[in-house]
């Protein structure tokens, strides 16, 4: 996997610099035509890749101390990771609980599933002020509100995939359990949950990435003292004079997303190896 990541980064840099070079040659037009390129290739819109990477090693002020931007971003990412983790565990638990509920009672599935789908069409910018206002009225710290926004994005893929996974065993297997007069709970634990694993882990991977997105969006919309979202917000405002920093912080966010994805993949391997199945 590490090799694929490196290859992807190299490919991205080649594409970036190639596009920049082409734009410079043709005065920002598609070669041989008068049609303008969608993105201008000047140093503000597309700073050289080397400058962006170099920026990661240049100093930035953090409170009363100065440190390299990469360390600065790591510190911020750690904070965002904590929010995202709470969001992930809360969201996954809620998603699983909803799936079991819908499995147990068909009427719950019919009643809940449309609402679960509708929930994801509510824009976060509408949700954020409601969540933070409610949180503050309950005297909860803002980090809880941000985690809740992250939860909101996270529970959806888990609920939907878990339900499909729990419903996935063959009818023959379910009937066998029934012939043993196994109670519903045993069927769930011994048959349905193991069968759901191939559905669950891809959902957890999506949920983990979404939990980071939710935490960053929450930070930007609510406003925190720290976190990657806060860094992105400040660098975005200074984009015109220091575009490299914004790009570097976006890279930081991408790496955090990759890291949580990798973390879930690792857990998946451990779990599936223990139970003697191949990873999906």
């Amino acid at each position: 996997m590490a090799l694929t990541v490196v290859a992807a980064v190299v490919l991205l840099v080649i594409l970036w610099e190639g596009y920049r070079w082409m734009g410079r040659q043709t005065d920002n037009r598609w070669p041989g035509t008068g049609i303008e390129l969608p993105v201008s290739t000047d140093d503000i819109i597309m700073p050289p890749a080397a400058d962006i990477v170099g920026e990661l090693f240049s100093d930035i002020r953090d409170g009363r101390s100065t440190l390299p931007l990469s360390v600065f971003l790591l510190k911020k990412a750690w904070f965002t990771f904590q929010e995202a983790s709470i969001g992930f565990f809360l969201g996954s638990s809620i998603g699983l609980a909803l799936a079991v509920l819908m499995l147990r009672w068909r009427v719950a599935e019919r009643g809940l599933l449309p609402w679960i789908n509708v929930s994801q069409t509510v824009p976060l910018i509408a949700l954020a002020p409601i969540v933070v206002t409610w949180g503050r009225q309950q005297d909860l710290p803002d980090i809880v509100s941000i985690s809740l926004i992250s939860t909101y994005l996270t529970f959806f893929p888990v609920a939907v995939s878990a339900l499909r996974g729990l419903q996935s065993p063959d009818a023959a297997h379910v009937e066998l359990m029934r012939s043993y007069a196994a109670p519903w709970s045993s069927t769930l634990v011994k048959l349905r949950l193991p069968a759901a694993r191939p559905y669950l882990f891809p959902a957890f991977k999506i949920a983990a990435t979404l939990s980071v997105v939710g935490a960053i969006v929450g930070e930007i919309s609510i406003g925190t003292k720290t976190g990657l979202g806060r860094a992105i917000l400040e660098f975005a405002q200074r984009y015109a004079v220091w575009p490299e920093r914004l790009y570097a912080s976006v890279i930081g966010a991408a790496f955090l997303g990759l890291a949580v994805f990798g973390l879930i993949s690792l857990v998946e391997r451990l779990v599936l190896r223990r139970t003697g199945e191949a990873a999906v």
Partner: protein
Amino acid sequence: MNRPWTTRILGLVMAMTLVTAACGSEDAAVGTGDCDSVDAVSLQLQWVTQAQFAGYFAAVDQGIYNRFCLDVTIREGGVDIVPQQQLASGATDFAVSWVPKALVSREGGMDIVNVAQIFQRSGTLQVSWADSGINSPADLAGKVVGNWGWGNEFELLAGSRQAGLDPSSDYTLVQQSFDMLALLTGEIDAAQAMIYNEYAQVLEATNPATGALYQASDLSVIDWNDVGTAMLQDAIWADGARLAGDDDYADVTTRFVAGSLEGWAYCRDNSASCVDIVLANGSALGESHQTWQMNEINGLIWPSPDGVGMMATGLWDQTIDVSTSESILAAAPDSGAYTTTYAAAALDILNGRGMDTTGQNWRATTVKLNPGGE
């Protein structure tokens, strides 16, 4: 502010004892740190930590609020946080907001009251390149004009209308992001800029023609204070219903306003220290940028001829005129929209200590900006 009833009763008893004790000694000490109890209050800002809010951060950092028996939590703003909504919903005890935006919310039913008018003038500019020939609102005719929207456009609309231009047809109004990119890349002819923030960003950018930073002489500026359509900006807003019905809150308001005003006076006299406080509170923006901002913010506050925090009534009336003529407000607000009661009480305390609360002798300094604002 939420204390159990036992503490409240205890507090009441203690307050009554104090009142009895204070009778006869007129100079009952307020703002000296002699506290029987400390009230926890929160302040919602409009945006992230920057020198625009230095006075509040300084009042926390320098223990000024503590001396007024307050424990203040400052909440930074985010993209979707509307301070006056946080205030009206009870999620915060006080909020900093621009006057026209808050009045729109007030007209919409939020019971919020301006208890201290911190900025005495507007910090909004319309900035263009010196060679563009845009020197007055009338010159905007036929140009591409940027503004941020979300209630930040009123001064521009009123100013251009006053010059005989119809904003819907005589120039092209475009939504601008909160940076100066569109001006630097030439997408727009005139960009909206706060004198303490975005304007400085241009001066922190490198001019490709010279290889050095852009200079103020490269720019042409329309200042709405000069045009006559400037509107009041940062003010402290409080919850109207609580002011009327909760004596504790009213008392806290006086102390909070007094502490905030003292914080601003501190930043006037110790601007370098306030820049340091702002940076320590987590601004990743550079030192020279915050130094510039502190200097300009002081210029928006000082001098305050009637005392810092008092209403600049002339500009208040102008704000209402522009708001109603631009149909931002359906009608002029009632007289309860602002009160000087708390600012006046606060000034009594501060003046009683011989503090300079008008800043008549304050002079702006020249701040040298570094590349990127570092």
